């Protein structure tokens, strides 16, 4: 049997409602697709049976959505939404507790002159900074601590090390884990290996005390689209990660030449849309790297709006992995409220 488009499974899954990928019902829904992941061969057939992607058409659609003109009230809405979706990130070898604390403060009150400014979604750090961030944010900030793990960004260590890296970050208080897939295994066609590793990392996200009651960190799976190289690979990887239990799929580490682009993100939006249609499980999307301006961020939100609609227009389902983006959003926000163009001296630099 050759598996074709996922919609073929609509009959298998009796959906009364859509469930979140991180909710307790998601594993049951995924079990409906157990035959797809039963063997390496079955998984390969399924992934290669997904519809192809025409690169030119995809890029043209993304560019077309990029010409939307978002003005006045719509712009104000989009800017605040974008701020609330930011995973404010520092992932440098030079990071220190001081740097991370400053970032946490910025995340909680992005614009000290305007307390109406929303806070960001998460602070994203390396595992050894999780405890610092956790402490700096406290328990009531509403801001998550996200940690990269699995030997980010290359991921070139043995699996036990990746799992230990993950467990360590979770134990230190991470709410979210951003793992990297084994791109080498994916590109050489060892899909089951990638699948099993994501499952194992997902397991490592469970906090001591068991999986009940939402005591697992949410798992974001980073593809490194720039290394996957083709859109067909990105679509296959999206399904692979979602089948393995990803709560979010994420474009890139920000550490390679090609990171998030409008077309590769649009393709992942289409994948989560189709996955929800087929399986009834909703997965989030996080473009990361290279999104620096409000104009860019709004283009991504337009893509979310016109591809997925209201259900994904929340920090629960869409994030920006970014650092400098926040200040540009703040300057635009000030411009909207005062009517004057702002400047870099009127937003905080940390």
């Amino acid at each position, binding site marked *: 049997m050759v598996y074709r488009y996922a919609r073929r499974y609509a009959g298998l899954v009796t959906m009364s409602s859509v469930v979140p990928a991180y909710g307790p019902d998601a594993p049951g829904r995924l079990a409906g697709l157990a035959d797809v992941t039963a063997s390496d061969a079955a998984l390969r057939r399924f992934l290669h049976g997904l519809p192809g992607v025409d690169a030119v058409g995809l890029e043209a659609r993304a560019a077309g959505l990029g010409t939307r003109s978002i003005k006045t*009230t719509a712009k104000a809405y989009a800017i605040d939404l974008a701020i609330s979706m930011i995973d404010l990130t520092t992932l440098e070898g030079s990071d220190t507790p001081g740097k991370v604390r400053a970032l946490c403060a910025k995340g909680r009150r992005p614009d000290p002159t305007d307390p109406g400014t929303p806070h960001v979604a998460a602070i994203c750090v390396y595992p050894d900074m999780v405890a610092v961030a956790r402490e700096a944010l406290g328990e009531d900030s509403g801001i998550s601590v996200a940690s990269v793990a699995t030997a980010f960004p290359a991921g070139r260590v043995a699996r036990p090390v990746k799992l230990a890296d993950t467990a360590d970050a979770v134990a230190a208080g991470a709410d979210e884990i951003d793992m990297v897939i084994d791109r080498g295994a994916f590109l050489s066609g060892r899909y089951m290996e990638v699948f099993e590793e994501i499952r194992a990392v997902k397991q490592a996200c469970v906090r001591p005390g068991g999986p009940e009651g939402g005591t697992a960190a949410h798992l974001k799976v980073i593809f490194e689209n720039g290394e996957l190289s083709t859109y067909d690979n990105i679509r296959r990887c999206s399904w692979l990660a979602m089948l393995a239990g990803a709560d979010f799929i994420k474009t890139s580490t920000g550490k390679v030449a090609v990171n998030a682009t409008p077309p590769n993100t649009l393709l992942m939006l289409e994948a989560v849309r189709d996955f929800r249609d087929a399986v009834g499980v909703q997965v989030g999307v996080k473009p990361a790297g290279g999104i620096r301006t409000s104009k860019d961020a709004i283009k991504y939100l337009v893509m979310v709006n016109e591809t997925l609609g209201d259900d994904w227009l929340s920090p629960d389902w869409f994030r920006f992995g970014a650092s400098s983006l926040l200040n540009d959003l703040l300057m635009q926000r000030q411009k909207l409220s005062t009517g004057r163009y702002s400047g870099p001296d009127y937003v905080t630099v940390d």
Partner: protein
Amino acid sequence: MANQKPNRSADASAGPSAGRKFAYAPAPESRAVVDLAPSYGLFIDGEFTDAADGTVFKTVSPSSEEVLAEVARAGEADVDRAVKAARKAFASWGALPGAERGKYLFRIARIVQERSRELAVLESLDNGKPIRETRDVDLPLVAAHFFYYAGWADKLAYAGYGRDPRPLGVAGQVIPWNFPLLMLAWKIAPALAAGNTVVLKPAETTPLSALFFADICRQAGLPRGVVNILPGYGDAGAALVAHPDVDKVAFTGSTEVGRAIARTVAGSRKKVTLELGGKAANIVFDDAPIDQAVEGIVDGIFFNQGHVCCAGSRLLVQESVQEEVLDALKRRMGTLRVGDPLDKNTDIGAINSAEQLARITALAEAGEAEGAERWAPACDLPSAGYWFAPTLFTGVTQAHRIAREEVFGPVLSVLTFRTPAEAVEKANNTPYGLSAGIWTEKGSRILSMASKLRAGVVWANTFNKFDPTSPFGGYKESGYGREGGRHGLEGYLADAADLTGGPASEKESATHEGV
């Protein structure tokens, strides 16, 4: 989701964003860039002038029914005056070195680029099409077309149409209302490059951009009489086509009028190119890139409100993916934004005229009466102006009128097929043959289908793409001759049917004695 009929409301900005979290605020392009005069004349021999009998007509904005201007209406006497001016101008224009003619065309291309925002807004006002399209499609292509043919003017001997290619003389050109300025460019650029002079009649519902183009000709310093613009109705077009001193007739429009023109020119020396109607099949195989195919289907039929002769108005979808494609298509149609053409976020603008709206409405009603199932997304249409919601019909067979007749509106008929052979048979089962689409990831199937489809333009894994270098034109009753590319020169050169530059035929030398 069955048979949802669109509502009409006073709120033009309603649409897919109504009641949504992220509702786009109005983003109107400014009208201030267009300085509209209350009235416009004919453009003959380098001057704006009244019609001989003083007749005028009004041109309205189809999105609001607002009168934009009063325009002189050309009659037979005006046609004669314009042809005489063109004939007189031909003596020197045809003799001008090609490089000099080319420089005039380059000037025109540049001025079009400079004034492109003004022209885009004007076109959206007069035609009703969205500013997004006039700005991003029409105007860039207009400039590109002049730029492309400008370069041919001094290279005609290398075009493969004879060693010493000569112009025909006076070209009488009649263009439609769907792409007013772009169709003007398709007609005028190759004609002038080849050394002909022109009398052009724009459509009665969209005369303004052609008259602004007349002003561009003046700015470019184009010699008097080389381009003459005659706004008017079908009677003026008929008089132009029939005028004995016209050497070349170029027409884009309906197949019915095309037939009448072919009859009129019978037995004359006039060379003719006709770009007529279509009923293109857009064929989606089960291995198609589905998301891009859906975009292509949408672009194929809803681009320019479906007022496109090469529109992909028949969707032929393989039965095994019918449900999947239709679900995705309906979802996508639900995001189309119908409304104010000048709003930068509008995807679908106004129907060009009350007459065209009536025709679309009648054909859609016939579709329902014949048993096809009608569907349109929830869609609030403005209360003034001419509007038609993007609509699709399922359960359509080859026997339905909506599968055979050109609707020339945002109405898609969905048919199914099981095998490639059946797809070819159904696609070709029409008197038209202008364009076709193929969606499949299998290369050899693309090439096989492309060679079997009887259509002048085949878009594989894309649709509705245009380029000045790419020949465009139909098979069968979609007309003859090609516009665009090297092929587009053939219709404007004597002896051009002969690629080798063999002996000059007496016919054409006879035509040009005394010139």
